[in-house]
């Protein structure tokens, strides 16, 4: 290596670099959940939005807790998350001006196929959770303050159980890693259906409990406050926010399928 | 070249200069004058303080007390070490290097040529002068000990110093290589360079010295003309040294 080569390399690098940086400004940054990104929903619906408006949507997929934090700091133009109580608080705190229902899917409980806690026959999800706790069957919890994690904790509360002990394992991970771990340790876990259906490493895990209304998983879109974060691309973000609940956007969500199975159900009012 | 009168060289003055390291006084307070364009040989047994005296003289180390300095304008200087320090480059590049870092350098070869020649050409002439032209592209650090020392001398030659310090430059060399170094020393001197060289080789000193500085245990015991030193040394240690007895 001599100085000339180094210079040429640096030059070439900076050239390709400027190409990356010169990308147009017609995009918004969307903080959303891993469940929507990992299942492939955004890959399916964003092209339709981009085609109509010319706006690209850059998705940062994180847990709902982190998505709220990104929104509070003004690092994303829009939020699409699934923790209705948290979202309403977010609006009440003045970080967002509007929250709209976009779609729902549901949570399910998956576990080892021999079902040691016998939850497949449970009447309600609360029963199922009680059975898991009583039999002290291993249960893998996200433990990451995500929307799914918050929903799971609310259900334990409804079941009158404080989950703790050897059997209850808080992983502090996203949905995918939690499923990988649950599969590895033959544990039950609480997951959104979309991530589960798109998940490719189930090993001995199988879907054991579904269908209770309490497992309803609502997604909401948040329009961030222009007052609090004036620098954000509020115009573009508003177009996205409105498109999601438009007839067109709702249809795109309904059309998204994995293995012939619809994963998200539009329910904008 | 020896026809032209060499310019007078400033006098190097040690005034009570001493050097102490970790509580050991390696050079006792020393007063010394080195003047004129002579060949001064610093002599003494190992550990006498010869290398230290050379380093103080060349300004690589400051004395811990007393003063070392030049009376008048400090002359241009170069130093050849016991183990030549050569850069990890080819022999040729070792020489072009000193020309590149010292842009004001006007080597003798250039001066006589009367017009500016390229660094590379200057370096090649120096290599040729020291019989190294055929090794120009060879990595300097794979050369033999004698070749390395000649390369160090060629480097010093390009610097065209008014004073050349040589610190036991032949102590690790075979007789043929020693001869080449001594010839080079005489060649430098002919060009008008003052020589300050340390050695513990009595025969070498007899061949080269105009005057002798004799050190023993960090004490400067004698500074006399060579003739006088070898025929009638003043100190007991020097006479023993000349007789070839072991002194320490």
């Amino acid at each position, binding site marked *: 290596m001599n100085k000339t080569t180094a210079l040429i390399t640096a030059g070439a690098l900076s050239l*390709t670099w400027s190409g990356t940086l010169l990308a147009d400004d017609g995009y918004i940054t969307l903080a959303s959940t891993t469940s929507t990104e990992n299942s492939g929903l955004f890959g399916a619906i964003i092209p339709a939005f981009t085609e109509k408006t010319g706006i690209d949507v850059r998705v940062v997929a994180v847990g709902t807790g982190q998505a709220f934090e990104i929104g509070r700091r003004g690092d994303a133009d829009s939020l699409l998350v699934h923790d209705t109580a948290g979202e309403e608080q977010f609006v009440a705190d003045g970080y967002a001006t509007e929250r709209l229902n976009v779609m729902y899917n549901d949570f399910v409980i998956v576990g080892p196929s021999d079902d040691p806690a016998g939850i497949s026959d449970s009447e309600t999800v609360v029963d199922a959770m009680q059975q898991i706790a009583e039999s002290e069957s291993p249960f893998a919890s996200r433990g990451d303050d995500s929307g799914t994690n918050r929903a799971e904790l609310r259900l334990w509360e409804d079941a009158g159980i404080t989950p703790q002990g050897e059997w209850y394992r808080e992983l502090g991970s996203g949905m995918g890693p939690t499923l990988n771990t649950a599969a590895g340790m033959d544990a039950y876990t609480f997951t959104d259906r979309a991530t589960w259906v798109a998940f490719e490493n189930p090993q001995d895990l199988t879907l054991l409990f579904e269908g209770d209304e309490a497992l309803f998983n609502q997604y909401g879109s948040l329009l961030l406050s222009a007052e609090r974060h004036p620098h954000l691309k509020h115009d573009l973000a508003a177009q996205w926010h409105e498109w999601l609940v438009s007839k067109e956007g709702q249809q795109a969500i309904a059309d998204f399928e994995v293995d012939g199975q619809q994963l998200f159900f539009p329910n904008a009012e | 070249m020896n026809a032209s009168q060499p310019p007078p060289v400033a006098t190097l003055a040690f005034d009570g200069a001493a050097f102490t390291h970790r509580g050991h006084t390696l050079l006792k307070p020393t007063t010394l004058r080195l003047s004129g364009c002579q060949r001064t040989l610093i002599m003494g047994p190992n550990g006498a303080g010869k290398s230290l005296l050379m380093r103080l003289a060349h300004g690589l180390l400051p004395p811990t007390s007393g003063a070392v300095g030049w009376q008048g304008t400090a002359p241009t200087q170069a130093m050849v070490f016991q183990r030549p320090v050569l850069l990890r480059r080819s022999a040729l590049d070792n020489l072009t290097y000193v020309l590149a870092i010292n842009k004001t350098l006007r080597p003798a070869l250039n001066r006589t040529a009367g017009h500016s020649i390229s660094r590379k050409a200057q370096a090649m002439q120096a290599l040729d002068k020291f019989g190294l032209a055929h090794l120009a592209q060879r990595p300097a650090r794979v050369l033999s000990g004698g070749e390395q020392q000649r390369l160090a001398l060629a480097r010093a030659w390009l610097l065209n110093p008014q004073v050349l310090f040589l610190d036991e430059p032949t102590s690790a060399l075979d007789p043929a290589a020693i001869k080449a170094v001594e010839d080079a020393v005489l060649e430098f001197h002919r060009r008008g360079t003052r020589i300050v060289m340390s050695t513990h080789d009595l025969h070498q000193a007899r061949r080269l010295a105009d005057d002798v500085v004799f050190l023993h245990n960090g004490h400067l015991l004698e500074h006399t003309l060579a003739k006088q030193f070898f025929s009638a040394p003043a100190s007991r240690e020097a006479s023993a040294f000349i007789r070839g007895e072991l002194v320490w």
Partner: protein
Amino acid sequence: MLTSDNAFSTALALILSMDSALISIVMLSLQVSLMAVVIASLLALPLGAALALWRFPGRNAVIIVLNALMGLPPVVAGLCVYLLLSRAGPLGSWGLLFTPTAMVIAQVILVLPIIAALTRQQIETLHGEYAEQLQSLGLTRPRMIPTLLWDARFGLLTVILAGFGRASAEVGAVMIVGGNIDGVTRVMTTSIVLETSKGNLPMALGLGIILLILVTMINAIAHMIGETAKKRLG
């Protein structure tokens, strides 16, 4: 299910398909990491050399901190850069969060201490050997630095490769400051994390194999350049 067979066949299929999404991910990975290493080297080589040459109060503390920072967890570096570049942070107005530039900044922070600390070590050794000669030639310490860096070049090449290894292997920092945005900030390592979380382990491992091949190729090229030059120059 994951077997080593289908990981390799997935890797092979990925390479053969020359999938454009994959190519852009690979290119971005290389761009980000190489850029980070170039910038870090430009800063850390002179810094390390200066640290080797100068004695000043607190020097040992600086060296200890640099050595310790070699073990800085990438996710911590990422978090610091995130807080710095976040809109609510001091440099938020630059709008760099979730861009490749942010990823380069984070990786520079990870790589710089490695290159600086190891350079310091190498240059200190070389300076021990060269000091008297260079001083005799009349070089002041600032002017010794280029000579020492050049003559230590073979050792420093390895140092820079160590930095590149750290940059190309880490995921914690680029995940946080880049956001793993498809087509914008998704690189090899964040793709691997994503595929793992999708349970698509053959794909994840396949991407890992490709990353390993790329890093090996870059190291091989650097090694060959170094060996050829070493043979030529000794």
